[in-house]
């Protein structure tokens, strides 16, 4: 907040520091909402410009991050709506060849325990987590990002997304349970559907609880 108060006084150095402080977080947030790195950078730039233009009206009553991510929420929502309107919106990474390891369908099958699995390396794990996050709906994903990476409390997330606290609670609960269903087979074993290490048995086949259904969109 201290930085933003300096920005309010037209201090360009403070503004530069503010950008450097939040650029990575903002780009990650937008990238996971709109799905493209270059678009995310453009949108992040738009967010920072809006901060600059709105600096005089900034009220230091709430956490600065809440204000910043509220702006980002609006920018991202507009971007997603425009894309849908232009019918250009695609699920991020629609090309199955782009995914180094597996598709969300494969993950869903894996969660039923019907596929053998193998050990994942770091890049594969990252890819798997990305796919699981992409499988959440927009609002679950946004609430998850604000809670997990920005450390906002439910009230702050509610302010950012213009929802009630109860709605946020529900969104985060479903997001976490859905992720758990998809990622559960790999939590203990770091395994990937499709193959099985020689002499090993799929952990999923050993656990009846793992046979959960593929999470459905609940909104």
């Amino acid at each position: 907040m201290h930085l933003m108060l300096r920005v309010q006084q037209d201090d360009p150095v403070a503004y530069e520091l503010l950008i450097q402080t939040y650029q990575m977080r903002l780009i990650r947030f937008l990238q996971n909402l709109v799905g493209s790195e270059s678009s995310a950078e453009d949108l992040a730039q738009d967010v920072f410009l809006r901060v600059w233009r709105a600096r005089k009206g900034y009220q230091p009553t709430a956490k600065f991050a809440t204000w910043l991510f509220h702006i980002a929420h609006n920018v991202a929502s507009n971007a997603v709506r425009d894309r849908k309107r232009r019918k250009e919106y695609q699920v991020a990474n629609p090309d199955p060849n782009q995914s180094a390891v597996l598709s969300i369908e494969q993950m869903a099958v894996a969660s039923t325990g019907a596929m053998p699995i193998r050990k994942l390396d770091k890049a594969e794990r990252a890819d798997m987590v990305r796919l699981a996050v992409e499988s959440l709906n927009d609002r679950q994903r946004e609430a998850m990002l604000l809670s997990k990476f920005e450390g906002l409390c439910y009230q702050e997330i509610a302010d950012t997304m213009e929802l009630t606290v109860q709605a946020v609670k529900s969104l985060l609960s479903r997001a976490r349970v859905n992720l758990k269903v998809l990622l559960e087979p790999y939590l203990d074993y770091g395994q990937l559907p499709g193959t099985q290490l020689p002499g090993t048995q799929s952990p999923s086949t050993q656990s009846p609880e793992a046979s959960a259904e593929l999470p459905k969109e609940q909104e």
Partner: protein
Amino acid sequence: MNSEFDDEALVAYLDGELDAEQTQKIDQQIATHPDLRDRIKQLRMTWDLLEELPVDPPSPRFAETTLEMAALSSAAEQKSGLRLLFSNFTRIVIVAIPLLFLAGFVVSRINQSRIERQLLRDLPILVDWRSLSNIDSLEWLEVLVSEPGLVPAFNDVELGLVGDGAVPIPLNGRREWVKKLDAADRGRLSVNLREFQQREPSRQSELRKIVESIYSDPATKQTYLAAARSYELLLQKQSMTQRSSLFDLPLENRKSELLHLISSYMAEQFAKKIPTADATAIESWAENMQLKYTIVHGHYDALKDVNMDLHANLAGCEIKMADFEDLASRMSPEARNILHGLNSTEAYVDTLVYWIRALTYPNEASGERISTEKLKELYMKLSGSQQDQVDLLQPEQAKSSLRKLSKPRAVLQTTES
């Protein structure tokens, strides 16, 4: 599954969003219900796994371009505000021009990141970093400039200059200049900037003052830079201990040490190509010495004495200090000037001995060494009578004569010949 708590409650519990009473209930249940503990553990581990979510860093110019856009946005806002305020065209022009200048200034100011701004501001220091980092005060630089022997003597060694070393004065020009640098120069610039930043703030500001003074007068700028660069080259020839002891000296003592270093260097250069007049002076002096000490000792070979015994040890030689002074007086003003700059009697004698040896063994002085095989080869090329003459010489003199034969110019005749 424990039915008392739904997923929403457990997630809120993990997020620290439950009130104290509910939290305590779950805490108690966890202790007694392993299935509840497992559910919570799975939910937490799922959340932890999100740390693996890949993050792409922003492009390197992200902050810079955002600042540029903000600056342009501000300029546009100012202009649109003016339109509302003034309807008279002339008044718009009168007010808009300085405002546009101001906007341009703002744009150019926030255009550069802080690091880039520092790099451009301190570019003259960073480009000449190796040279200027040796200059601890403007006063010392003045001493270097006033030392005529310094500048022309050293211009042939690597200086570590970035680019061509010719930094433009306007900041915009500097930016363009930096853009044109190749990768190696940019890397060097970056290393120099880091080293500069590691210096004490007081030292940094002292260097800025020095450079400001150098660049304030275009007419003398090159002279000052050349002096600093030559000084760096001179220092490169010294050991680390010599360098640091030089830096520790008070200005006056450092000045005489500097003179000594220059003279030593020049003596070295002088030995590589001794002028004919000086070579003749040395030969004539050697003959005198021979005459003088032959009277005392019978046969006396002054050059042999110098070469074999006196080198760095005057006490072991017949030739006395007065004899060396006599030799110096016979030499050219250039040679005497070099000798004059040396700061000790030992260095004075050493230098004269060095020159005598350079004449006796020219290959040695020029850094070359002739092997015994090569000497034999030279000997075999001589005519029979020449070989007879060489056979009569002492071994050292024979070698000296053969060495001279390997050079086109044999400046010194042996005493026997």
